């Protein structure tokens, strides 16, 4: 397993094995919190940080943890990481922390994290585990932010509202109002909007995969035809 290349890790994390698109893990925070870009970004980055830390720690101790008790050990590691993140967010991003609320401590139940610890970090070297945590987390964050952008644009008619919660008052200029006097579309902000939005995003990913697959098979047949002609 230690032969996994970094480009493969990137491809797996961001596209082929994306935690939100393909594995459909961690849907509870994904669906509950993704109603604005800022919320999505906050939760996505917190999850990424958790993934990196837990992956690195698990990988560090992989030779000394007996397989019989590995799951409780992973759970302990993940929960302590999440506790640290929760406390630091409470200290430095208090307003955002209040909005995300229960979903910060609930990162601990995100199956994507324990799945990566079990399936990857416990069998790979520390740098690989770090890269895997980073790109799995980024893949999750990208989907979360995409969904957040869709729901915010349709639901509120804005982008990056409340950005000052993350980057301070200096960033308020980033908030874009797409439509003036927008009535709002409540459905996009409510949970059904999250389910519909994620459904459409997954459909889009499948369409792109299909196009790529078609192109690849075409080039294969072309190559075969040219070799046969030769």
């Amino acid at each position, binding site marked *: 397993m230690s032969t996994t290349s970094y480009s493969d890790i990137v491809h797996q994390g961001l596209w082929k094995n994306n935690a939100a698109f393909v594995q459909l893990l961690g849907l509870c925070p994904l669906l509950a919190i993704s109603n604005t870009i800022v919320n999505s970004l906050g939760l996505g980055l917190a999850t990424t940080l958790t993934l990196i830390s837990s992956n690195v720690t698990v990988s560090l101790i992989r030779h000394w943890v007996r397989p019989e008790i590995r799951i409780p050990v992973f759970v302990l590691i993940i929960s302590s990481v999440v506790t640290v993140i929760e406390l630091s967010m409470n200290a430095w991003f208090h307003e955002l922390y209040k909005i995300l609320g229960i979903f910060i401590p609930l990162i601990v139940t995100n199956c994507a994290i324990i799945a990566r610890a079990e399936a990857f970090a416990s069998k790979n070297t520390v740098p690989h585990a770090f890269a895997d945590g980073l790109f799995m987390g980024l893949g999750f964050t990208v989907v979360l932010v995409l969904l957040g952008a869709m729901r915010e644009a349709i639901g509120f008619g804005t982008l990056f509202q409340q950005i000052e919660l993350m980057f301070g008052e200096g960033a308020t200029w980033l908030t874009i109002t797409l439509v003036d006097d927008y*009535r709002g579309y409540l*459905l996009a902000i409510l949970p*059904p909007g999250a389910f519909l939005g994620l459904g459409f995003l997954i459909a889009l990913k499948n369409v792109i995969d299909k196009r790529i697959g078609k192109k690849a098979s075409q080039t294969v047949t072309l190559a075969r035809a040219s070799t046969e002609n030769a």
Partner: protein
Amino acid sequence: MNNTQSSPFVSSTNSVSRVMLLVILALFPGIIAHIYFFGWGLMINMIIAINVAVASEVLMLKLRQRPILPFLADGSAVLTAMLLAISIPSMAPWWLIFLGTAFAIIIAKQLYGGLGYNPFNPAMVGYAMLLIAFPREMTTWLPPTGEALSFTELLNYSLFEILPAGQSLDSISMATPLDIVKTQTALELSLTEIGQQFQHVSGAVAGQGWEWVNMMFLVGGLFLMAKRTISWHIPVAFLSSLFICSLLYQLSDPAAHASPLFHLFSGATMLGAFFIATDPITASTTVRGKLIFGAGIGALIFIIRTWGGYPDAIAFAVLLMNTAVPTIDYYTQPRVFGHKDD
């Protein structure tokens, strides 16, 4: 040419388009009563809805690479559009109808695989979506006097959201009888007091205008039953369950609970019983299942009207029972002749 037909001598084939045509025909008495009491808004809404429905259907069939004409000719999209337009307040901006109809056809019908594959009643999905997303626009009902707004005034509102000078939405619109009963009983007013205070809406049994609209939908529904287009099971189970529930509560506390007749002839009860709950695709298919399905909707309507957050409940009750249909059908499979029941 006097060709003699050979057997079988089956008189008619009940094709999908014939069924849809009959149902559309049977809607007309109710539609006429609706227009008489609430003005020409319904006509405007229906024209918008039908156009949007047909356009969405064509778009989705094209995207799904299905033949367009045979699927379009079955008339189901037109029926969905009409049911949705009837459910929406007659004074509504065009985009409300547009969004609701497009949502009903594209998401609730075509994304599930088109006619015959959708688990939820498309018109009711569109209605529920609108009610959740636009509560204010979806509750501005005109008073049932028939002359609250003229055709051009309604058209002006539909297209540009311009109201006649000096009028506001609140001064024109009026709470429906169901709404009044709900909010006033919550304020601990007895029903006789409500009747005295709101005489202009109380009517003979269930609110001026509303009772006639319901009566006309009942007439259309009975016509469909006589034509054997719909079976009696769902409407009868639906209406009797609503009747029994409301009767029990009225007997226990007549001051706080409206009469069974009020429940049967207000809101969209008759439209729901004969035209919405009987949708052959989303309703239960077995005989016992149909009875359970209808009775469940009736009971849910009473529950939501009495204790829920909305004054009327046809859409939510139908959608909730739609989710139960696979289970109901599974447990009510008729015994195959010659096999043991186990």
